[in-house]
C-alpha cells in the first residue's frame, strides 16, 4: 500500500535538495541562512512522520519550527538569480513546442482525478493501493511525478537538474510565505489548548440579548469572519466560535439544525479568508507568484464578493436552519 507518509518524505527530499543547492548558490546574498531554512524544512517533513505515529518526541520538532520562524521572521531567507531563459527565448521555444507544452501541465489534474476516483475502486489481494482517506493528496503527488517525466520527454530535456533548478526559482520567489499556512494551523492548536474558545463564549453570553435569533446568527457568522481575518484560517476560528456561540446558543438554546449552522458557519469563515493577508497561501502567495506590485491586489478584488457572501450566509442560516 502506498502511504501518504512516503509522499511527505518525497516533498521533504525535494526541499532538502533545493536547500543544498541554495547553500551553494553564490548569487544569493543570504545563501547560508536561506539554504538552512529550506534544508531544515525538508528535515521536518521526515521527522514529522515519527511524531505522527508517536514513536519520537514532538519537542525537537517544536524547536525546529521556532528556528524556521526566526529564519523567516528576521528576514534571513533571500533568493538568488536563477539561470533561466529570457522572454525572447521563451517566445521561440513556445513556437517550437506549441500546444505540446500543455500536455504535462494537464497531466497533473488528469492523473489526480484518476487516482482519486478510479484507483480506490481496485483491490489487489484484499489490499487497497493508496492509503484510505489520502487518495487526493497521493494523486497530486503521483500526478506531479508523472507530469515531470512527461514534461522531460515532450521537451527532450534529459537533465533532471533543469526542472529542479527551475522549481527552486519558483520556491525562492515565494520565500517564507510558503510556511505561513502550516504555522496558522499551529496557532489554532495553541489557541484551542489554552482555552481561547471558552473565554470568547463567556463574553458572548454577556453581550447577546436573549432569544434574538437574527442577532445570534449574525454574531456567529461575523465572529467566524472576524476571527478568520485575524488568524488567516477558518479552521482555527471554527472551534473558537462554535464553542462560544454556534453550539450553546444556536443549536442548544434556539434549536437550530446543527448541520446547517456548522456547515454554513464554516463558509462564513471562508469569506474572512478571502479578505486577510494572514491567509498567505491564498492571498499573498498568488500575489508573489504573479509578480504583482501590490501584494494586497487579490484581497482587493475578493473583498466585495466576500462581504456580500457573508450576508448571504447569515440569511441562509436565519431562513433555513430554524
Amino acid at each position, binding site marked *: 500500500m502506498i502511504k501518504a507518509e512516503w*509522499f*511527505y518524505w518525497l*516533498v521533504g527530499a525535494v526541499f532538502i535538495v533545493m536547500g543544498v543547492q541554495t547553500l551553494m548558490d553564490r548569487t544569493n546574498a543570504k545563501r547560508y541562512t536561506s539554504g538552512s531554512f529550506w534544508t531544515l524544512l525538508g528535515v*521536518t517533513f521526515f521527522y*514529522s512522520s515519527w511524531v*505522527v505515529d508517536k514513536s519520537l518526541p*514532538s*519537542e525537537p*520538532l*517544536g524547536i525546529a519550527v521556532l528556528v524556521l*520562524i*526566526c529564519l*523567516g*521572521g*528576521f528576514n534571513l531567507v533571500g533568493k538568488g538569480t536563477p539561470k533561466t531563459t529570457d522572454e525572447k*527565448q*521563451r517566445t521561440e521555444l513556445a513556437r517550437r513546442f506549441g500546444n505540446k*507544452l500543455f500536455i504535462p*501541465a494537464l497531466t497533473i*489534474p488528469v492523473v*489526480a482525478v484518476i487516482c*482519486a*476516483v478510479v484507483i480506490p475502486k481496485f483491490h489487489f489481494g484484499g489490499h487497497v493501493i493508496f492509503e484510505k*482517506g489520502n487518495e487526493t493528496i497521493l494523486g497530486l*503527488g503521483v500526478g506531479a511525478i508523472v*507530469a*515531470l517525466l512527461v*514534461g522531460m520527454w515532450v521537451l527532450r*530535456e534529459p537533465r533532471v537538474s533543469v*526542472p529542479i*533548478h*527551475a522549481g527552486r526559482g519558483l*520556491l525562492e520567489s515565494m520565500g517564507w510565505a*510558503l510556511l*505561513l*499556512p*502550516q*504555522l*496558522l*494551523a*499551529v496557532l489554532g492548536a495553541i*489557541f484551542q489548548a489554552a482555552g481561547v474558545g471558552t*473565554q470568547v463564549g463567556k463574553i458572548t453570553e454577556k453581550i447577546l440579548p436573549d432569544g434574538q435569533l437574527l442577532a445570534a446568527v449574525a454574531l456567529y457568522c461575523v465572529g467566524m469572519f472576524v476571527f478568520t481575518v*485575524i488568524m488567516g484560517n477558518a*479552521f482555527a476560528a*471554527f472551534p473558537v466560535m462554535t464553542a462560544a456561540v454556534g453550539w450553546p446558543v444556536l443549536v442548544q438554546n434556539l434549536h437550530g439544525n*446543527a448541520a446547517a449552522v456548522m*456547515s*454554513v458557519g*464554516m463558509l462564513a469563515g471562508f469569506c474572512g*479568508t*478571502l479578505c486577510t*493577508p494572514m491567509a498567505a497561501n491564498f492571498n499573498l502567495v*498568488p500575489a508573489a*507568484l*504573479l509578480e504583482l506590485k*501590490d501584494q494586497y491586489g487579490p484581497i482587493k*478584488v475578493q473583498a466585495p464578493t466576500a462581504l456580500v*457572501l457573508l450576508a*448571504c450566509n447569515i440569511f441562509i442560516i436565519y431562513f433555513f436552519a430554524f
Partner: protein
Amino acid sequence: MIVLLGVLVVILGFATRRNPLLVVGVAGIVTGVLGKLSPDEILKTFGESFASSRSVTIFAITLPVIGLLERNGLQQQARTLIGKLGNLTTGRFLTLYLLLRQLTAAVGLQTIGGPAQSVRPMIAPMAEAAAERKNGGRPLPRAIRDKVRSHAAGADTVGVFFGEDIFLAIGSILLITGLVNATYHTHLEPLDLALWAIPSAICAFLVHGARLLRFDRELERELVVANAELDVEETAK
C-alpha cells in the same frame, strides 16, 4: 480572560505590519504561557500540530514541472492560444474558469487548480491576453495588468472555497464532524454538511460571476483613460 491577550498580539502584530511568521510565533508562545501551558507543552503543541498540517505545504511538489514548462515558454504559449479564442473577453473567460473550478472542487478535485499549478502558468496569462486583445494588441499598463492578474487569482480562490465544501472528504467538513461529534456527543454526517454547502456555492457563483462580467466594462473604461493619457504624453513630446 487574560488568555485573550494572545488574540490581541495577533491583531497588533498584523496592524503594525510585523513579519507574519514572527507574529504567529510570538502569539503562539504568549497564548500558551497565558493559558498556563508549560514550556514543554507549548513545544509539544507546536511540533504535533506542525506535523499533522503538512498537507497544506505539499503543493511545492508541482514546482519543478511548472518551472520546467515555464522556462520552455508555457506562459507565452498560453497567450498565443487565448489569442485565437475569438470573442472570449477577460470577464467571460474568468467566469467560465470560476464555474469550472467550483464544479471540479465539488467532486473532490480541489488540487486541479491553484496559484502555482494553474493561475500563474495558464489562467493569468490567458486573462491578460484577452485584455490585450481588447487594447488593440498593445501591452497593458502595469496597474491594469496587475488588476487582471488579481482577478485571475480571485476567480481561482473564490471557486475553490465555495465548491470544495460540497465534497464529503474535504478537510473542513471532516474538521466539523470530528470536532462537533467528539466535543458535543452528537452525530453529524459529512453528507448533511456537504448538502448545506450548496446554497452558498450558488450564491458565490452568481455574485462573483456577475462581478467578473462587470469587470469587462470597467476594464474598457480604464483602458480608454490610460490610452488617452498615453496619447497626451506622446503629443507633448
